Each structure stands twice: as C-alpha cells, then as structure tokens.
C-alpha cells in the first residue's frame, strides 16, 4: 500500500513543477525592476525596503530636534559598535538657584535638583563599520532611528563615513523648511502661470 501511495505522491507532486514554471513565466512578462543607472535615477517610490545609512527622525513639532531619548538601547544593541551617543548633562544651577536650594535644605524641605534632559548632545555613527543589520532600529523605544534612502553615497575617504547624525538632522530640517517655503511661493497665484509653462516644457522635451 505504502509503495502505491508513494508512487501517487510522486506523481501528484509533479504539479509543483508547473507552479514553478508559472512563477518564472509571470516574472518573464513582468516589468523590469532594475534601472539603467546613469540614464535613470531612483525615485522615492522605488526605495521601499532599501537600507541606506542610518538617520535620526525629528520630532513632529520641532523637526530639527531628534525623537531620541538618549537611552543607549541602540548603542547596546549594535553588534558592530558603530554608534556613539553622548547624553545631555543636567544644566548647572546658577548662583541664585544654588542659594535657594541651600535655603530650602536648611528648612528641611525636599530639594528639587535640576534633571538632565532626555536628549543626546552628540550622536555619531560610523557607516564604515555598520552592517545595516537593523538591531538599533528595532530596539529603539522612541522610534527615533530609520534607514535613509541615500542610494548614491560615494566617498573617497573612510573618515567621511563617520557621520554626525544630529548635524544631518538639522540640515534636513532646514532643507524641508526651505522646500515648504518654496512650495508656498509656487502656490501663490502669481507663480501658477510660470509653473504650468515650465511643466509643459518638461513634457514636450
């Protein structure tokens, strides 16, 4: 019985061969997913799942400030030790505040010492060591890290791969503000005409 069953199993599993042909056949007629690089460049829609060098995510209301809470989870999780975070220190109390604290202590009250803000002052990232494993992104409790979509990263010196992510975030925020302003300017009625002619020229070429 088992021999017949095995025989029948082998025969029915031939169907999987057809399934395989279907898969490659479908791919054969599908559109290319690659680009002819120097002639075409990657658009943001084609970058889904792409892992570029890390970057910080800004706060929604203050895009120049990172969501990072300097908890060091990314630093601990990183197997390549490529992230360096320096926590912000508590601000030094002024003379008057020190005096007030002293007085309060003498009165037997609970003293409120200034706390360190939960943010990094330095966030360095060495892309030359990073293996893009994503442990930092997964472990970040504040969801402050993501992969950038920097496809065309080229450098001539390894040192250039040591990135200051805070500076990068600041630059990005500035750029986005400038872009928004440009958009606003373009949307104003004066410029609509100019823009449409520009578009027409683009489609004609």
């Amino acid at each position, binding site marked *: 019985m088992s021999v017949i069953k095995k025989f029948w199993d082998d025969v029915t599993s031939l169907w999987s061969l057809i399934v*395989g042909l279907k*898969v*490659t056949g479908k*791919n*054969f*007629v599908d559109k*290319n*997913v*690659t680009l002819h690089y120097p002639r075409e460049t990657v658009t943001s829609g084609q970058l889904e799942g792409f892992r570029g060098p890390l970057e910080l995510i800004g706060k929604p209301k203050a895009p120049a400030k990172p969501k990072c809470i300097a908890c060091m989870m990314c630093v601990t999780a990183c197997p390549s030790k490529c992230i360096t975070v320096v926590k912000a220190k508590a601000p030094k109390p002024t003379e008057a505040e020190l005096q007030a604290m002293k007085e309060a202590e003498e009165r037997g009250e609970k003293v409120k010492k200034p706390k360190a803000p939960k943010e990094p002052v330095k966030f360095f990232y060495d892309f030359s060591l990073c293996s893009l494993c994503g442990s930092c992104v997964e472990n970040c409790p504040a969801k402050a890290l993501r992969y950038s979509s920097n496809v065309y990263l080229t450098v001539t010196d390894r040192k250039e791969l040591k990135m200051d992510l805070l500076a990068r975030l600041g630059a990005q925020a500035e750029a986005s503000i400038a872009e928004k302003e440009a958009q606003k300017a373009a949307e104003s009625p004066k410029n609509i005409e100019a823009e449409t002619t520009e578009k027409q020229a683009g489609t004609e070429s």
Partner: protein
Amino acid sequence: MAQIPVELVKLLIALVAIAAFVGLNGLVLVYLERKVAGFVQRRPGPYEVGPQGLLQPLADAVKLIGKQLFTPSGSDKLLFWMAPILSFMPVLLLFLPIPFGPVATGMEMDLGLLLILAFAGLNVLAICLAGWGSNNKWGILGAARAVAQSVAYEIPLLLSVLAIAFMTGSLNLTTVVEGQGGWPWQWNVFLQPLAFIIYFISALGETNRAPFDLPEAESELTAGFHTEYSGMGFGMFFLAEYANMIVVCSVAAALFLGGWQGPFFDGAWWFLAKVYTLLLVMIWLRWTYPRVRFDQLLNINWKWLMPLALLNLFITAFVMKL
C-alpha cells in the same frame, strides 16, 4: 573534366549551410539565453553593447577567441586537444538527415534517425577524452559523472524514439514528418504524449541542460571535464552544446510536432518556429528549476524514465500489432 556527382555538390552545400547555421545559432542562442535569464529575473539582460545588447554575443565570441590556449603540464596533448574537436565536428553530421523543409534536407536517408542517435553518442567519447586528457582529478571525476549521465539518458531517449519508429514503420525523418498532418491534433505528440515527455526530459539530460547540468557547473562543481580548457577549447564544447540543443529540438519537432507541416501552409518557417519554441522552453526550464543532485539524476532516469519508456514501447507495439 570528370563529371562531379550532383549528390556530392548537394552534400557540400548542405554542410557549408549547416556550419553557417550552427555558428549563427550559437550567437542567437547565447543572446536568447541571457535575455530570457534577464527577463525571468526582471532585469533587462545584455543592454550596453549594441542596440538592446545585440552585439553582446559577438563581443563574447571575440573575447573567447582572444584568450590564450593553455595546455596543462603532464597532460596528453593529442587527446586534450582532440576532445573539443571531436565534440564539435560530429554535430555538423547530425544536421544532415534533419528535414528543415519539404526539400531542404541535407541528405535524404532511410536510416536518418539511426545516424543521429549513433553520432550523438560520440559526444560521450569526447567528454571522456577531455576528462582523461586534462591530467586533473576534477577533470576525470567530472568526465565520469558526465559519461554516467549521458549513457543513462540515452536509453529512455532511444526507447521513446523507437515508439515513434514502430508507429510509422520508418527511421526516415521525412517519412515520419509526412505521416503527420498540418494541424496540431494530427501530430504524433497527441498519439504519444508520454513518449514526447520522456524524450524531452532525456534530451535535457543528454544535452547537459539544467536541471541536469551537472557536467558543466563551473562555479559549483569545479566544472568537471572542461576545467582545464581555456578560450576556444571551451568555446568548442560550448558551441557543440548549443548545436546539440538544436538537434534534439529539431528531432522532437520532426518526430512529434509535425516538422515543416503546419496549418494553412507548409514550409521551413514552421519547422524553425517549432524548434525555437522548444529551445525557449528549454531555456525557461533552466531558469526555473534548481539543479538535481547526482543520485536524484540517476534515480529519475532508472526508476522513472526507463520503466515508463519501456511500458510505452510495449503498449505501442501491442496496439500496432492489433
């Protein structure tokens, strides 16, 4: 001036035409193979050399010819260089009895099918010599592997072809083609579907095509019999493989798919269309299936193809006798 026999002139023209056809087909198939591979993997394939990469196979050929011919030390020089020639030369002969069109047959002969099967076997000898002459243990192990495969797959191939010969009562390919009609349901493939499937699988094994490409897996299995061949030495094996592919597909088209007969009008175009469709299927299979293990390869042959081919032959003989 002595009279030159017409047959001889015709043979000479046929051989020259076949050599040109084989050379051209090598280029076309290399291009086709790479384009299909590209499209299956959703990339464009060769693209830069010439429009749509059309000149890529030519560039490959020039590179292959330009390479140094290297003979390994301690090897048998004569055998070593005889092997690629022996692998390529008989292939031209295989094209002679193939009926490309109603009149476009190199040499009409009653034992055409037998000639093809007999001379196709020479390839095994060439592989054997190549492995032995290389003075290289991977070479000889690869040759042993290739010979075991070729010998094994020859048997079901013969048996499935024999079933057709039983049916038509002839080994002449032209007669077999004429025995079928133009429309698909008049083709032998509908009377002998099992024979066709067995023939096609065995043909894949015979021509060392994926998923049975164990003799030539250069990156994974140290290539085997052609490890030591450089430049055109390897190129000859390569060309012979592509020529062999056309031969097996041509025989399949003639035996099973009605040859040059087609709906509405007959002609060599139908034949070439059928051959190229089969070649395309072969390439498609290559980029779909993973390579089989060697024991699997032999098991498929001895446990499945052989008994099925024998069964098919017996049934055919029984029905024909009735």
